[in-house]
């Protein structure tokens, strides 16, 4: 369980993380999604006490991370930047990490086998490929058999087999009842892995939503309509369950009605249509749309405001 309340981090006059409030619950994989520079890594660093928040708090398993007697048993973290001495062998790195918490050599062997690094355990970590480095980082995160696992961009540098392995591992960890918090800038990957999504942009919370709902809202069909009588058409079409957005004059994006329904109603009312085309946003488009907004509108927009603003536009 991770509970962030009003979490904020400023570096000089730059705000990396801006008033983030969210809860990551056990038993599911929670994706932490946002473009590069959205504040994901900074947030994760604050969770394990590497960076001190400018304001706000974050608790893991009910306490501040540094208040736990054995932090590695609480949260296992893979951080984005490499956090391993390059001249030390993989096994010795894990041994040193384990020793600080009094974790036995047997567990070191266990995690080495778990991530498939047995053959290279005696090699210098600096000689590792990006993918091997990620596996070592994951081994390090799992050392303490933690209740919460937090991975920053774990699939970076992994080959397809490695990606599949991480995906299964995350689901398995969640099925065991652990809290699994995993960041990514790839919507498509999160759609396959995460049950819940926390979407951030420019350090702000954009959406806190189940993946299912996010996909449903993202792939909701809309219909692009162009008409010289767009305003009359809007009045005609608006009704319960219908939302209409308009980015250009004479152009409407209608959600909640099929192109057949729109065409029939326009014909009945005698309105001219220049274009009537069904649109389907891909997940990536939906994600980019969301995060683009967070860049364009430099104000905090809550989940509901976001939806209503689009309608009002």
């Amino acid at each position, binding site marked *: 369980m991770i509970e962030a309340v009003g979490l904020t981090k400023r570096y000089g006059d730059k705000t990396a993380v801006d008033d983030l409030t969210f809860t990551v619950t056990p038993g599911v994989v929670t994706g932490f999604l946002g473009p590069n520079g959205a504040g994901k890594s900074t947030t994760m660093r604050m969770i394990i006490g590497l*960076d001190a928040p400018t304001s706000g708090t974050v608790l893991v398993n009910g306490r501040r991370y540094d208040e736990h007697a054995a932090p590695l*048993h609480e949260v296992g973290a893979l951080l984005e930047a490499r956090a*391993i001495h390059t001249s030390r062998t993989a096994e010795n790195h894990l041994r040193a990490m384990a020793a600080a918490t009094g974790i036995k050599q047997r567990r070191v062997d266990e995690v080495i086998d778990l991530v498939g690094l047995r053959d290279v355990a005696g090699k210098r970590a600096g000689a590792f490929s990006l993918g091997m480095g990620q596996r070592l980082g994951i081994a390090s995160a799992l050392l303490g058999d933690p209740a919460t696992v937090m991975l920053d961009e774990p699939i970076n540098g992994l080959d397809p087999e490695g990606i599949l392995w991480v995906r299964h591992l995350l689901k398995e960890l969640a099925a065991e009842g652990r809290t699994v918090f995993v960041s990514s800038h790839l919507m498509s990957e999160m759609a396959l892995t995460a049950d819940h999504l926390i979407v951030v942009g420019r350090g702000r919370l954009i959406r806190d939503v189940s993946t299912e709902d996010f996909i449903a809202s993202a792939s909701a069909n809309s219909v692009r309509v162009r008409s010289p009588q767009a305003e009359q058409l809007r009045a005609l079409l608006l009704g319960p369950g219908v939302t209409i957005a308009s980015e250009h004059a004479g152009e409407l994006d209608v959600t909640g009605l099929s192109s057949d329904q729109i065409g029939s109603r326009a014909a009945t009312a005698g309105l001219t249509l220049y274009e009537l085309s069904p649109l389907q946003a891909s997940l990536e488009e939906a994600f980019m749309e969301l995060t683009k907004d967070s860049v364009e509108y430099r104000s905090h927009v809550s989940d509901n405001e976001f939806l209503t603003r689009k309608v009002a536009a």
Partner: protein
Amino acid sequence: MSTTTIEVPRPASAEPAPSAAGVGRVTLPNVARSEWIKFRTLRSSWVTLGSAVLAMVAIGLVIGYNVGKNYTGLAPEDVAPSGILQGYFLAQLLIGVLGVLFVSGEYGTGMIRSTLAAVPRRVPVLVAKSVVFGSIALVTMVASTFAAYFGGQLFLSSYGHGGSLSDPGALRAVIGTGVYLALIGLLGGALGWIIRSTAGGISTLVGILLVVPVVFQLLPGAWAADVLKYLPSEAGGAFVTSVSLPGTLAPWTGLGVLVAWVAAAMLAAAVLLRRRDA
């Protein structure tokens, strides 16, 4: 998992295989064990430490030979028991660099993030690193000053100028030089914590030990000489020499001043370590 954490529901069907992670705790002995593993699993640790030992002993032998051969007409500080131990000028740089490296190496590679994630209270890491490195440095450096002393004596006595540890100031010089070197190693460690970069830490160490004293020697006025004798290298130098030179502190005062420097640097390091983002 500690008993105070929130219970995480684990469905029986998905119960993981019994893990060997056990129930550990972060304690100072555990952190010290971790630091000892870190120290001994880097080849650079042993290369640098070996160089410091070699510098101490080899220079001791060379000085013993030279002093024995040209005994008459040499300055009193050269023929004194501490004369053979002049290798410490070089050895202090090597052991100091090792002290810097043991800390700055973690910052340079990013290892510090793993270290501080495991021990988020942070200060225990500084204490454990200092205890582990201080002990290693003390044992090896005192051993090498004894080796340098007895090695040098072999040459001295073959020329008929041999001395013994019971000579005035001899034992203090031999043990004291080892203690001095260990303290300089710790000073290097503190600089590593404060500056967090290998290049910056080493430059600062060299500046403190070699450059700053020269500046104060060149400055005119009695106040410069007064400041000079309280600098770490000069205060330490007063402790490790068996001859009392004018314008230096008394040996034990010198040791006290050096210890105060190291303690102040460590305190600053601890405060910064707690305050700064990793």
